[in-house]
C-alpha cells in the first residue's frame, strides 16, 4: 500500500485556505467601504463650504465682491487639525485666498463641483471647486471657488479603519481555522470508528461490518462486506473440499482394505497371503499419504488465520496420549507421561497443535520396536518444550534439518509406511506459533527425540 497524503490534512488545508481568502476579501471590502465613506464625508463638507462661499459672491458695479462667510470655513474645522485653504478666481484672476493653490484639472460645471486630490506645499490635499456666474450682461464673470483641506485626518481615520479591519480579518481567520480543524476531524470520525470496528475483530471473524456508516462510506463498507463474504465462501469451500476429498478417497479404500483382510483370512497359500499383505500395505500407504496431504492443506490453510484459543498444553498432551494409547498398545508399547502436575496455559490453535503432536507421536509409535517405551514429556524453563522420545531406530545418517522438508523421509525408514509429511506438518505448526521443531537423537543411545518448543507467554 502507498500512503498518498492525509485526507484530514488536505481537508484542513483547503478549509484554511478558503478562510484566508475570505478574511483577506473581508479586510479589503471593509477598508475600502470605510475609506470611501470617510472621503465622501470630506468631499461633501468641502463642496458645502465651496458652495457657501460661492453663494456669498456679489456683483457690484461690474466688480465681483466677496464677503467670506465665517461658517463656510468653520464647518471644515471639525475634522482634526487639518489645514484649510481657499481661493476665489474670477476670470483667471485670484480675488482672494492663496494665489498658488492648485485647482482641480477638470473645470467644474454649474451643477457639478469637481473634486481631485492634489499636492500643495508638500502635503496631499483634497480640493473641491465650484463655479458660479456672477453679474449680468457684459459684466458677467465666471468665478471659480476652490476649497481644499489637507488629508492627515483622513489618513488617521484610514489607519484606524485598517487596524480594525485587520483585527477582525485575523480573528475571523483564526476562528475559521479552528473550526476547519474541528470539521476535518469530525468529518473523518466515521472512518476512524469503522476502522476500529474492523481492526478489533479476531482473525477468523468474517461477519459483515455492522457499524453505522454515513452515505459516502456505504459503498466502501458494502465492498468490504462483499469481499469478506467471498473470502468466507472461499474458505468454507476449501474446508468442504478437504472433507469431501477425504470422504471420496477413504470410503472405497476402507471397503477394499476390509475386503482384503477377509480374503487374507480365508486364503491358505503363503504366497497368496503375501500378495494380500502387499495390497494392504499399498492401501495403508495411499490412505496415509492422502490423510497427511489433507492435514497439510488444513495446516497451511489455518496457519494463515491462526486461531487464538486459550489452551492447556498439558491437557492437550494428555488427550493425544489417550488417543494413541490403543494404537501403541497393539505393539505392546507403553506411553510414559512426564507432564508435571500443573496446567500449562498457552494461546494458539488447538486443532493445529493437536495435529502436530499426533503426527509426532504417531511417527514414534510407527518406528518403535515392539515392547518398547515412548516418553511424552512437558518441560518448562525459558520456553515450553513438548517432547516425544522413543527407543526406535532413530534417524540414522539423515541430515536432521532435511526431515522437515516436504516428502523427505529418513535414510533408514526401511519398509515402514509413511508419506514424509508428518514432521513437515509439525514444523509448520510450530513456526505458525512462533516456536520451532527440534529433532535430536535420544540421549540414552537409541531412538530419537522430537520436540515442539514454544516461547513462554
Amino acid at each position, binding site marked *: 500500500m502507498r500512503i498518498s497524503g492525509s485526507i484530514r490534512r488536505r481537508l484542513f488545508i483547503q478549509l484554511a485556505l478558503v478562510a484566508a481568502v475570505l478574511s483577506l476579501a473581508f479586510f479589503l471590502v471593509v477598508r475600502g467601504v470605510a475609506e470611501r465613506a470617510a472621503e465622501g464625508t470630506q468631499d461633501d463638507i468641502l463642496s458645502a463650504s465651496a458652495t457657501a462661499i460661492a453663494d456669498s459672491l456679489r456683483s457690484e458695479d461690474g466688480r465681483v465682491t466677496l464677503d467670506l462667510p465665517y461658517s463656510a470655513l468653520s464647518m471644515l474645522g471639525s475634522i482634526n487639525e487639518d489645514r484649510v485653504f481657499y481661493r476665489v478666481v474670477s476670470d483667471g484672476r485670484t480675488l482672494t485666498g492663496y494665489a498658488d493653490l492648485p485647482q482641480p484639472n477638470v473645470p467644474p460645471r454649474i451643477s457639478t463641483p469637481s473634486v481631485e486630490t492634489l499636492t500643495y506645499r508638500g502635503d496631499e490635499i483634497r480640493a473641491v471647486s465650484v463655479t458660479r456666474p456672477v453679474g449680468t450682461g457684459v459684466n458677467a464673470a465666471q468665478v471659480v471657488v476652490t476649497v481644499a483641506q489637507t488629508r492627515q485626518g483622513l489618513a488617521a481615520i484610514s489607519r484606524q479603519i485598517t487596524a480594525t479591519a485587520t483585527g477582525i480579518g485575523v480573528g475571523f481567520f483564526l476562528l475559521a481555522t479552528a473550526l476547519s480543524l474541528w470539521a476535518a476531524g469530525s468529518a473523518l470520525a466515521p472512518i476512524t470508528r469503522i476502522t476500529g470496528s474492523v481492526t478489533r475483530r479476531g482473525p477468523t471473524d468474517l461477519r459483515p461490518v455492522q457499524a453505522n456508516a454515513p452515505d459516502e462510506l456505504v459503498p466502501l463498507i458494502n465492498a468490504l462486506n462483499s469481499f469478506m463474504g467471498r473470502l468466507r465462501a472461499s474458505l468454507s469451500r476449501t474446508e468442504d473440499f478437504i472433507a469431501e476429498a477425504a470422504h471420496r478417497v*477413504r470410503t472405497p479404500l476402507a471397503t477394499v482394505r476390509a*475386503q482384503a483382510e477377509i480374503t487374507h483370512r480365508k486364503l491358505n497359500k503363503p504366497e497368496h497371503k503375501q500378495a494380500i*499383505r502387499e495390497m494392504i*500395505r499399498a492401501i495403508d500407504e495411499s490412505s496415509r499419504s492422502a490423510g497427511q496431504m489433507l*492435514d497439510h492443506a488444513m495446516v497451511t490453510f489455518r496457519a494463515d488465520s491462526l486461531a487464538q484459543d486459550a489452551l492447556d498444553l498439558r491437557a492437550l498432551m494428555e488427550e493425544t496420549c489417550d488417543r494413541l494409547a490403543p494404537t501403541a498398545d497393539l505393539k*505392546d508399547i507403553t506411553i510414559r507421561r512426564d507432564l508435571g502436575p500443573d496446567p500449562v496455559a498457552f494461546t494458539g490453535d488447538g486443532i493445529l497443535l493437536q495435529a502436530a503432536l499426533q503426527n509426532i507421536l504417531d511417527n514414534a509409535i510407527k518406528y518403535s520396536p515392539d515392547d518398547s517405551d515412548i516418553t511424552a514429556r512437558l518441560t518448562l524453563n525459558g520456553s515450553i518444550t513438548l517432547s516425544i522420545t522413543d527407543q526406535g531406530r532413530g534417524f540414522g545418517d539423515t541430515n536432521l534439518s532435511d526431515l522437515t522438508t516436504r516428502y523427505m523421509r529418513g535414510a533408514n525408514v526401511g519398509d515402514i509406511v509413511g508419506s514424509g509429511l508428518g514432521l513437515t506438518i509439525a514444523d509448520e505448526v510450530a513456526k505458525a506459533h512462533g516456536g520451532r521443531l527440534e529433532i535430536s537423537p535420544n540421549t540414552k543411545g537409541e531412538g530419537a527425540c522430537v520436540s515442539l518448543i514454544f516461547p513462554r507467554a
Partner: protein
Amino acid sequence: MRFLLIEDNPKLAGVVAERLQLDGHAVDHAATLSDATDLTAVADYDLILLDIMLPDGDGRDFLERQRQAEKRTPVIVITARSAVSDRVGLLDLGADDYIVKPFDFSELEARVRAVLRRQVGAADNAVTFGETTLDSTKGELRFAGQTVPLRNRELRLLEVFFAAPGQVFSKTHLIDRLFSLSDEASENAIEVYVGRLRKRLEGSGTKIETVRGMGYRMVAR
C-alpha cells in the same frame, strides 16, 4: 459382542460386518439414521459403530439424541475426515472414540477394548476354561485366587486359544491374528509370545502345548 453398524455405503457395511462376524461378533446393520433409531429402540447393543455422513442426516445428531436420552451404549465414530477439528467436536458430543477410514481391524478391536474398559458396568466378557478365566475387558487372567495382568498381544493370543480350546493353531494363523497385516513379522515372534503366555499360565490348570510341525494348542494340565 453385539454391534450396531450405522453406515450408508452398502459395500463397506457388508465387508465390515463380515469381518466382525469372522471374529465371532453379532452385527446389525442400519443404512440410515431412522433405521438406527428403530433398532436401538428394540435391541441392546454392546457398541455402536457410527458413520458421520449419512443420507438422512448427520451422524452427530444421532449421537446427540442418544446422549440426551441417557443411552450409555458406547459409540465409536467412523470418520473419513482427517481434520482434527472434526474429531474434537465428536468427542465433545459424547462419542467415546473415533477411527479414521480406512481402518485396521486390529486397531478397531483395540479401540473397542479400550472403550469397554472405561465403560462402568460393561458386560462381562470373561471366558472360562477349566479353572482359568480370561477377562478380555479388564485384560487379565484369573486362576487359583490370583489375578495376572496381560499385555495387549498376550491377551489377543489367549483370546484365540480360549475361543477354541484343544484346537491346534498354526504359527501363520497366530501371526495374522497378532500382527497388523501391514507389519512384517517372523515366526520367531510367535515363539516369544507363546513363551510369555506359558510364564503367565504358571500355577494354573491350563497350558499351551507345542504340536510338532503343526503349531500350538491350549489344553488342561
